[in-house]
């Protein structure tokens, strides 16, 4: 029976992807994409990757949807680029199908039993006091990737800010809506956002031992921030705000500082002090959650509009 469920889910996923790709209208394609992200979240649940499912639902579908919808609004109704030659269509379809078939064959041909690092992680995890192996991999065994990925996040915000008309990247980003928020949006923001913040904090707290963690929590908090902005409940902060910048830097550079401290406490970069691993890891998670939330939110809001003339 579960096989039938998986088959239906896969077919729907495929239909969603085709809907995104084949829909000519930008708005409909983005809406289809949001639905596709939702289905992908279900697929991750079926693959026993709940941490990934949480991330996909929060980022892949939720926040990406906001970014893309906003992008569609700014585009001209009629795209200036001409559609590619329709004669190329069958050719492109053939190439794509060939790639999909070859890849499918490659996936089916993967060796059995599958090689895995699960055993290594299981051996090394108890020393960290963490119960969630994914958090263990992200923050301990492959902490360098995670640290640098925080830098990627910061850098993409720098890239977005660099698109500002103001060379010093000052001021507030434009609001998400061109007009005051309608009453239902404001109501939603007032009621849902506090609950959402609680859920975000719960995911952070749970992340040490159960699925969840800094990424998922940060994404939820960012989503709640956006909800508040869309409901006119908070004002978008100015980018030159010192406190804001400190929050942006807290995650990557707090993590980096812990990494350097590892030399003193554990004798190795990105090592955790023996005996206090879990406490330090959670402190790092709190810092990066804060930074992820603020960075994601600001990335969505876009480049600042320049200093206000008062």
């Amino acid at each position, binding site marked *: 029976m579960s096989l039938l469920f998986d088959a239906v889910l896969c077919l729907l996923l495929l239909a969603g992807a085709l809907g995104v790709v084949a829909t000519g209208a930008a708005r409909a394609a983005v809406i289809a994409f949001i639905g596709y992200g939702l289905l992908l979240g279900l697929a991750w649940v*079926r693959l026993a990757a709940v941490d990934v499912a949480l991330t996909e639902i929060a980022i892949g579908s939720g926040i990406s949807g906001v970014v893309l919808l906003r992008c569609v609004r700014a585009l001209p109704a009629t795209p200036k680029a001409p559609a590619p030659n329709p004669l190329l269509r069958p050719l492109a379809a053939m190439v794509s199908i060939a790639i999909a078939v070859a890849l499918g064959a490659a996936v089916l041909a993967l060796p059995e039993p599958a090689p895995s690092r699960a055993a290594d992680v299981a051996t090394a995890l108890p020393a960290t006091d963490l119960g969630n192996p994914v958090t263990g991999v992200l923050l301990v065994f492959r902490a360098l990737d995670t640290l640098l990925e925080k830098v990627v996040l910061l850098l993409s915000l720098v890239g977005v800010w660099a698109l500002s008309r103001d060379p010093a990247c000052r001021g507030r980003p434009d609001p998400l809506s*061109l007009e005051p928020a309608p009453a239902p949006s404001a109501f939603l923001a007032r009621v849902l956002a506090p609950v959402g913040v609680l859920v975000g904090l719960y995911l952070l707290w*749970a992340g040490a031992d159960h*699925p969840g963690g800094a990424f*998922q929590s940060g994404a939820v908090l960012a989503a709640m921030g956006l909800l508040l902005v869309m409901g*006119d409940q908070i004002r978008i902060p100015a980018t030159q705000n010192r406190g804001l910048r400190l929050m942006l830097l807290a995650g990557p550079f707090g993590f980096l500082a812990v990494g350097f401290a590892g030399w003193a406490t554990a004798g190795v970069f990105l090592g955790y002090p023996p005996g206090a691993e879990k406490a330090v890891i959670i402190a790092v998670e709190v810092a990066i959650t804060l930074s992820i939330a603020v960075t994601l939110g600001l990335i969505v809001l876009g480049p600042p509009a320049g200093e206000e003339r008062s």
Partner: protein
Amino acid sequence: MADLLFAAATLLLLLAAAGLASLWWAGNDLDRMLAVQLLGAAGIAVLLLLTPAMGDSSLLDTALLLALLAALAACAYRAAFGPTRPKAGRPPAAPRP
């Protein structure tokens, strides 16, 4: 039991797909957004059904997240494409304290 729950989840997915398809072809973009909301509601129900079926109670957290973020897309859609009311034209309201 698990099989029956999976069957129920499958049925829900199929129902959502049927609604999605009909709205997709028939309606305007607002209807399509509605169809995605339908999918979200069905997704929450599916995840609730999968929780006992797969025996993993952490799936409830995904359902929680889905319920929480269900409104985000609709709000974003409204913010991006909400029709400018005739009396509009004034700048966005000052933030409430």
